[in-house]
């Protein structure tokens, strides 16, 4: 089991993305970086904001790494939400597309591009739900 937003978690996400034929075909032509900002929630045992930087290119995850939130904020597309929202996404309690339409996940980046790649972003999110995760507030 990988701890949420750890290096091991990032590796598992990358493996899942690269295993996904759905992602490979839906993300053909994608050439932008994606940053996930996980905002701190100290009362949920997630004391510091973290960033996930995803280097995605043409249906492949070239690199996914966890670091400071500021790194993720520099990406071409940035999705920001508090820890508990990401946990809902990771547990399939919140659909990422709906979350963005509702403003539960805040998106920064070129809207026509992200809409064009809705299916790939959906699959990318799904990849984060396909392995067991240790959530810091469930320890």
């Amino acid at each position, binding site marked *: 089991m990988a701890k949420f937003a750890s290096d091991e978690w990032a590796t598992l996400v990358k493996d899942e993305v690269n295993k996904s034929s759905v992602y490979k075909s839906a993300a053909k032509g994608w050439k932008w970086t994606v940053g996930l900002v996980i905002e701190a929630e100290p009362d949920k045992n997630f004391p510091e904001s973290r960033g996930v930087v995803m280097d995605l290119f043409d249906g492949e995850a070239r690199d996914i790494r966890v670091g400071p939130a500021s790194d993720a904020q520099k990406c071409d597309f940035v999705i920001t939400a508090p820890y508990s929202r990401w946990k809902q996404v990771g547990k399939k309690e919140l659909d990422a*597309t709906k979350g963005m*339409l509702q403003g539960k996940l805040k998106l920064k980046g*070129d*809207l*026509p*591009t992200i809409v*064009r790649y*809705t299916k790939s972003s959906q699959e990318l999110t799904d990849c984060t739900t396909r392995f067991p995760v240790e959530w810091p507030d469930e320890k």
Partner: protein
Amino acid sequence: MHDPVSGRMARRKVKAAPKGPGLVDYASKEASAFAEMLGGLIEANVLANPEKQKDFDTLVARVGIWVTDIDEGVTLVFDGGRLTVYNGLEPRRTITIHAEAETVMSLSNLKIGLLGLPVYYNDVGRGVALKLLQGKLKIDGLVPNIATLNRVTRIVSVQ
């Protein structure tokens, strides 16, 4: 007009609050995330594409979009080169689309083919047509306003 009286409204505010000199205004000071997303999408599309700009400049219509699985919607009021986005459904809509979030995204992904008509014979188009047949996509006011719907689809489509 298919709906001369007020429809469902979500967080409706009455006074217009223009957001800068762009093509799109938001009726509410606190535009919903969905309103901002759709307004932003249309603005980006129109600014990047002269064909869409032509449609945008001549379109006069009040289009409601209600996303059934998040229980939120917007009204897009096109007024010949200006768009005002309202939170919720406003009265006197020309067309109202009711669909799940995924279908709304698919509508924005419809390819535009010959004669500027949406393509319904590729994967995305077939998916949209199927939702229409299954009643998962409902379009009030469709029959008398097909030309308007096609024009709105051209403006919203990112393809």
